[in-house]
């Protein structure tokens, strides 16, 4: 990725956050929580990549919801959220629609999350809109209780 920012002072994928979620009594899917690997928060419009895998299987984009500030965004709509701010002290919840959910036990959760650092242009670049990426990706074995 070349020059990138990544400030990991706490877990990106939060331990104990993996669980199935319910809708009208049925398991609709699973969810987990994510902290941003930086020292400050960012507008959601700076998110350039968001992808999830579970037990090494990529999750289709259409099944992912990025949940923050009481709202649930589909992946392709994140780029339009230039006034929706992700507070650095608040984890986002990622919901993956999967009727029936996940089995109890340990699961390998993979997250690809890359943002633009909107005040740090790439050094030496004369291109407009070219910023140092913030790499907030992670991969962890999380326990679903």
């Amino acid at each position, binding site marked *: 990725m070349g*020059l990138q920012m990544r*400030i990991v*002072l*706490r877990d990106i994928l939060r331990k104990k956050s993996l669980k199935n979620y319910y809708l009208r009594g049925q398991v609709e899917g699973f969810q987990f929580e994510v*902290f941003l690997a930086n*020292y*400050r*928060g*960012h*507008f959601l*419009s*700076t998110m*350039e990549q968001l992808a999830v895998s579970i037990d090494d299987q990529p999750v289709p984009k259409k099944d992912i919801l990025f949940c923050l500030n009481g709202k649930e965004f589909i992946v392709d709509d994140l*780029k*339009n959220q*230039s*006034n929706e*701010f992700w*507070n*650095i*002290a*608040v984890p986002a919840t990622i919901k993956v629609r999967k009727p029936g959910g996940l089995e109890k036990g340990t699961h390998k959760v993979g997250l690809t999350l890359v943002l*633009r*650092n*909107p*005040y740090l*242009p790439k*050094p030496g670049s004369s291109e*407009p*809109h070219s*910023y140092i990426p913030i790499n907030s990706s992670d991969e962890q074995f999380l326990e679903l209780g």
Partner: protein
Amino acid sequence: MADIKLGITLYSFTYEYLTGQYSLEDCVRKCAELGVDGYEIVATQMVPSYPYVSDEFLAKVLEFEYKYGVRPVSYGANTDRGKLFERDLNDSELVNDTIRDIQNAHKLGCKVIRAQYLLSPENLVAIAPYAEEYDVKVGIEIHNPETPSTPVMERYLEAIEKSGSKHIGFVPDLGCFATKPNIKNYEGALKKGANQEMLDYAVNLKRQGVSRGEAEQLLKDAGADPFVMSAFYDMYGYLTFHNEPDLEGLKRIMPYVFHFHGKFHCVRDGEETAIPYPEVLAAIYDSDFSGYIVSEYEGHSLRADGLIDYGAVEAVRRHLEMENRILAELEKK
């Protein structure tokens, strides 16, 4: 003679805040315990209602001020030119965002804003009337690898002088006066396994003024390891150092300086390991400066890297003690 007040930027407590050990209130209380009466707040880090300051948040800030006698004096703004997904903000949008920052600072009672260099000299001049109306001073941060004399900063100086406004200027980060490699890039690199001979070679290339591209090639040809290369990139970038601190440049811009970031990573035996505080503080002391130097601790990962065995509060305590000692010595002269 200058009127120097010492404060703390809450950014110093980044590790404790992000890991949930300190709330905002804890950060403010620590400032009081460390003996200062003013703090800087980085809005994108600790204002939950960002990009606005909610009445609820203001009430908290006022409550803490009442309880601890410490108040916000400076508002750290981020000039997020790249926040939209498809293009950079245009000048009018950057100006609007900065006007909002001025109103936020005013609401919090901060008299100073740290802005960043993506706000161009022309845009800085454009916001001067708003800065004047609210009596909030907006300063462009001078952060490594910039120094007061680099061409980017020269352009600001020219625009500021021409504008005649007393409400726009500079916020120098004292890290830009570093004369040695950062502790992370020397001791830290060695600890990770960097070859010392090669690391010293990298330091010497920087000292001899070899260009970044040429030095990179020389190091690669010599077979430098990744730890040396990583330190090398920092030494030519945001953690660079110079043989001589740019104090002449500082003297030239001092009429337009109303706030400093007292950057530090490690104070050991009464000295910052990379930044010559005695010389820098003497230059400030001999000016007409009136304002705060806020301690800005950036060694958030040094403890985890095994380079120090204490947290942010002790780090800031050492920094304030060093500054107070140096200022007392200057007073005696």
